């Protein structure tokens, strides 16, 4: 088997707070590179066509779909994944609330859901159930039916306000 001749590009970015350089295939999307290039498997792939939200990561402070962005587009950006958000402690209240409320079952949607919920709570520290449902409507969960997730986000919001 001949070696493949994938066109690549060199990128430099801040990944979970650390400055790194990498050579990435031009056509590889961000979430695939994070998972298989950078070894950060906490971001998931549920559809690869921009609907399910399992691939959510934060790029320059905004939650984006990692399957709709190429890895080369992250050149110069600050990228934070669930691993980074966990170690910084910035989503701890949400993580505790999700755990205690059993707001996850298989957990496949959870990293993306947590990042999206964190973005909501930054914007709106006291969201109503309807506002939570609206904010999370781009994150599919096939297991929980969402009720417990809404409860958990409310509980986290309350604990952060206290």
């Amino acid at each position, binding site marked *: *088997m*001949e*070696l*493949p*001749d*994938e066109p690549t590009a060199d990128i430099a970015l801040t990944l979970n707070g650390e400055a790194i350089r990498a050579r990435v*295939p031009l056509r*590889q999307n961000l979430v695939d590179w994070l*998972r*298989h290039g950078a070894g*950060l*498997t*906490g*971001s*998931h*792939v*549920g*559809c*690869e*066509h921009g*609907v*399910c939200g*399992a691939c959510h990561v934060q790029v320059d402070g905004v939650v984006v779909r990692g399957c709709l962005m190429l890895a080369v587009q992250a050149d110069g950006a600050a990228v934070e*994944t*669930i691993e980074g958000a*966990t170690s910084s402690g910035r989503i701890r209240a949400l*993580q505790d609330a*999700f*755990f205690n*409320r*059993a707001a*996850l*079952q*298989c*957990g*496949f*949607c*959870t*990293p993306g859901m*947590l990042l999206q919920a964190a973005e909501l709570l930054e914007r709106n520290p006291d969201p109503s*159930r*309807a506002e*939570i*449902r*609206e904010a*999370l*409507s*781009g*994150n*599919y*969960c*096939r*297991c*929980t*039916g*969402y*009720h*417990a*997730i*809404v409860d958990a986000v409310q509980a986290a919001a309350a604990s952060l306000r206290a």
Partner: protein
Amino acid sequence: MPDTALPPDGWIGRPMPRAATRRLIEGRGRYTDDNAAKGELHAAFLRSPFPHAAFGITGRDAARALPGVRAVLTAEDLAPFCRSWRTESRAFPGLVSPEQGPLARERAVYQGEPVALVLAASRAIAEDALELVEVEWDELPAVTDPAKALDAASPSTHQGLTSNLAWRTEFGGGDVEAAFASAALVVEERFTFTRHTGVPLESRSVLATYDPAAEALEVRMSHQIPHQMQVHLADLLDLPMGRVRVIAGDVGGGFGIKMHVYPDEVAICAASRLTGRPVRYVCDRIEALMADIHAREHVMQARMAVDAEGRILAFDADDIQGLGAYSIYPRSSTVEAMSVLRTVGAPYHFGAYRARLRCALQNKVPTGQYRSVGHPIGCATTERLMDLAAAARGEDPLEFRRRNFLPEAMMPWTNPAGGRMAELSHTATLAEFERLLDLPGLRAEIAAMRARGRCVGLGFSAVVEYTASGPGAYGPAHVPVAAMDTVVVTLEPTGDVVARASVAEIGQGIQQGIVQVVADAVGVPPSHVTIHTGDTASAPHGGGAWASRGAGVGGEAAWGAGRKLRAEILKTAAALLQSAPEALDLRGGQVVDANGTPRMALADLASTVFFRGHELPGGVQPQFTATHQFRREEDVFLTTNGLQASLVEVDPDTGIVTPLRHWVVGDCGRLLNPLLVEEQVRGGVVQGIGEALLEACRYDPGNGQFLTGTLADYLLPMADNACDITVGHVETPYSGSALGAKGAGEAGTCGAPAAVLNAVNDALASRGARVSELPITPTVILRALGTLEASE
């Protein structure tokens, strides 16, 4: 007689989150595709773009020449490494389901059927190579509609077959003709149920590693039943069972989708054997929607006879199932249809039943067991007829149900459908349901909404589910399915307990339930119990995750193993303490005497045995690993019951139905963990709401092309179109087991479509419209209201 000494202040029954979800909230899950193997190849499948076609692979050189490509494989290449298979079941004698292999040979019979396989250095290169494989396709007429498939004039799903009838049967009991002739009221409806599928968010994935030196296969896969896969991979690849290890790590949802033997997954294992290299494959979403099993395509004509007092006399159900191109391997698709027909009328008393079934082959992906197999269709059929009858009698729908529920005093009772009804709690459940709903208040609320012009409706459904299948389900059919489970518990030198179980964790939380059972059975806190599931090398054979069996079957095995270990611990402690085992107890990790006074910490006892064995009295050989294998001898199924209510709003202009609220009261026997049971119920209800309103696998009626290959076309419930769900419980422990747990994980899905269907019809009633088709899309609503022509 089961040892039923549940501790009064134990862990069973406590609401506790599943401990392992700590990892998942931090992104530390290990799903199949999070693993890599050194030297692995990535696979991509060439799948049939046509529902029915003859084909020849005429050129592979260009694909092979692409840098990074290792192999381009066809059915002929894999044949020396893998047998073909055919779905057979003695439960369905004469079932027509042709031979299948890991890749199609000469003819593809459903769109998405794998026909060739590329192995390459990356998935992207493998997909590039697929485009270079030269195939000559000769499209053949496709069979899609199940009813038309049975017309004599229909083309054949498989060339060489003269009919698309895969199987037919007729069963029942009592005098149906006499019942309908004497009835004061007959209600009848024709229902159409469109195919849908499970869509676990993690799609099917497999990483197969064949070691030619050891002649051993290790397969990591996202599957509900690793031991079943071990059996079939050993058989199909002709390996000793002990040389096949199947590991399902974290599994991103299953819902029945991941309990079958899929050609693509078998092909990956055969390809690893052929190349001697690890091969990795992840189904992408389009492949998953097209080639995962579908479920629940039925055309149901059903009627119910009622006497002048409003008592049900009989049901008559005639069902056509769209089965797909093959009956799914190994359990067969027909099981779903039989489950539909066995569920008709299940909550009620009735004297006569006739079920007729025809299963139609079609050029569509096979159907199979999806969450609450068949039940939602039997339930929707029954419950809609109940509402039609109540309306015709001018009676409240709950009152009509109350009169007809199977009385507790009559149980156990085998109904005319052949369903054995035992230990159901319809009366208590209805009382709890009425309390939970506050019906007078709710009715006033609905009246106020209607007065403001809102088109809202309330619908009910009564649920009976057959759960936790025993050996009598697949055993007599000679389908190799383990209805038993094994749990091994080991005391470690630190006093910790490790459990290895053949049940499988797919998100439902059974690991936590088993931990709580082991904790109580042994007498240690759950924090001292670690559980391993999902690895055939870790736990001996057992059933995995299907039919809501984890608590009812796996829980019993865990209890049995834990009690054996506890007895051994107490025997050893008695020898060391010069006491008698009966005078000692084990609580919270402490050996205590009859007064509860601590005599010895379990950790000290364990370290004495493992590290200072010389201190043990002579003749004491503690056995600190205990195994229990449990199979239920009585009751083929454990029946459970419940009630659901749905409040919906219909927008008569757009036809959009919005669920506003949902209520469930269920009785699943002893609750091992009410927190996790409630979330199973809620998740199941929302899947049922998806089934009722959104989800459909659609095919072009002309050319048979699959139309719903993305999540933008196949609609799932989202946070903003699902609703809050209130859950209540009645707890009637099953009397035939130690724990008394029955199945809980599927009841939500069973009853939700029926409740939503009835709620929509309640909303539409004032406008003289009615619907009997699922999903109830805006088009269905607008047609019912006459806004759209039937043909539009």
